[in-house]
């Protein structure tokens, strides 16, 4: 048997979208390897029906373990216990902050090989081969495993969600022991929303600002341009400027923020780090303004403008207003 154990992150009664993608991918790969995909949820009082719902995405069994939520090391303990007591050849993660931490910790625990930022996986000769883009996505490396267990950590949004219609999965309670170091971290508050609650997911046009805006007030330029485009436009931001307190968390794009695919994504002063790219690369049209001609964002924009956004944005706002009459 070549079974795959997939980690499913959940929060406030819903499974994370990336985890649904990972379960779907795990089910597809397990079928190719002639095994089953099992999912694992760790939390405090995980609802049975939430766990069972993963059957719809191809999990034939779901393990539920009682443990602290939102921290990686307890999940390493739970998955370590599941793998040592089960028949698993691979562990799969949908990416995100916790996926990276758990996958890496599990690799250390099991002496397992790990591939991260994986964008595609295929089965070949009874083994999995992971594809990982490297060097700013200018090359793709292929990784196989020498270890008994292989760990695959997907890039955010890399795995497609597929409902199989298989219905509810069997749910099994998993007991495990919390390792001493896993109990040394305690969640004080989780999921705090900082800044105003803005809605960017429905917008056709997003004007996104990054560190290149220079200061919090720089966002005014983005807001004015979005205003010129009209009601279907909104302002978005990068992780760096949200962490700096320049803009609300609810407007953040990327790894630990929103994933969007508007008709137009206009990036101002954004370098285009991978963590940002994963949240906006499926936008229909990407326009980037950056003064650094080497900024990675120009590698994946449809129109790139090398120049000073402080000069360009106000004039562009005027021109859009004039055009719209």
């Amino acid at each position, binding site marked *: 048997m070549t079974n795959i154990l997939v980690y499913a992150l959940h929060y406030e009664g819903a499974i994370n979208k990336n985890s649904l993608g990972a379960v779907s991918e795990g089910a597809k790969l397990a079928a190719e390897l002639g095994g089953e995909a099992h999912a694992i949820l760790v939390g405090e009082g995980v609802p049975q029906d939430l766990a069972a719902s993963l059957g719809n995405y191809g999990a034939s069994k779901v393990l539920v373990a009682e443990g602290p939520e939102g921290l990686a*090391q307890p999940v390493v303990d739970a998955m370590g216990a599941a793998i040592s007591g089960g028949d698993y050849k691979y562990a799969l993660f949908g990416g995100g902050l916790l996926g990276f931490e*758990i996958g890496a*910790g599990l690799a250390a625990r099991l*002496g397992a090989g790990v*591939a991260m930022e994986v964008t595609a996986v295929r089965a070949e000769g009874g083994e999995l081969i992971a594809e990982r883009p490297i060097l700013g996505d200018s090359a793709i490396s292929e990784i196989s495993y020498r270890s008994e267990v292989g760990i695959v950590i997907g890039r955010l949004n890399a795995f497609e969600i597929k409902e199989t219609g298989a219905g509810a999965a069997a749910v099994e309670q998993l007991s495990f022991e919390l390792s001493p170091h896993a109990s040394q*971290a305690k969640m*004080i508050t989780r999921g705090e929303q900082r800044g105003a609650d803005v809605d960017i997911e429905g917008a056709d046009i997003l004007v996104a600002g990054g560190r290149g805006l220079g200061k919090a007030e720089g966002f005014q330029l983005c807001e004015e341009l979005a205003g010129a485009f009209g009601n279907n436009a909104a302002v978005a931001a990068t*992780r760096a400027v949200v962490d700096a307190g320049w803009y609300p968390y609810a407007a953040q794009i990327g790894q630990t923020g929103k994933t969007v695919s508007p008709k137009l994504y206009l990036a101002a002063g954004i370098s285009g780090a991978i963590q940002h790219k994963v949240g906006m690369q499926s936008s229909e049209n990407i326009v980037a303004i950056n003064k650094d001609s080497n900024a990675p964002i120009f590698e994946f924009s449809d129109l790139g403008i090398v120049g000073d956004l402080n000069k*360009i944005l106000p004039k562009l706002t005027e021109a859009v207003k004039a*055009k719209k009459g």
Partner: protein
Amino acid sequence: MKICVLVKEVPDAAVEKRLNNSTGRMDRSGEKNLNPYDTHAIEAAMQIREGGVAPVEEIVAVTMGPESAVRALHKAVSLGADRSVHLSDEAVAGSDVAATGYALAQTLRRESPDLVLLGQQSDDGECYTIGAVVAEHLGMPSLTQVIKMDVETGALRCERQAEYGYDTVQVSLPAVISVGDAINEPRYPSLKAIMGAKKKPLETVGAADVEIDTSKVGGENSAARWIAAKAPPAKAAGEIIEDEDTAETVEKIVAWLDERKLI
């Protein structure tokens, strides 16, 4: 409190990064520098020392890499570390993330740190995971992407942005913390600190000195095997406008948007 900061030398951002096609490994020749993300970890250590809540006896920079990695250690010392340790051994060359984390953990074990700090990622391998591997081997709690850190008695109160918003986590010491780049603005080293960096103690250790089981490290023993590298699917390059005359640039942008019915 003794703080160890893990640092790494990476190809300078100005140098084009590439792969060695015969080995599938990163070609690490060319100009090197301290991983820019690591400067935030050193700064965080300095701020704990200067904050005075817990006395910091020593800040030790630790790296693994070839001879040239000494330059990253000198930079780390110029930014505030008191001394440095360099794990240099042919046996560890080509190690994957899991093996590198094990080798670094062995090197750290000898130092018995109260806190291990590192940057959120390296500038070359784009890997955010080494902290979690090191922590597991050392049996310490760990957290990555921390953007605020307050020292409490025997613990740190850490904040970070995770999947559903900002989390505040209390982590008991000893611990392994990787810091995000939003945690601080690293200072520039003074000329005096740069000149003095080479005089600070630097210890070079081999695999045997830190009791590394060499059957677990190196390219051949790593559990993840890089089998090939290929080019990504070709994507049509976007149009680029160099802004010389802004009025003209804006006209071109508007025409481009108009053509696609985006206005």
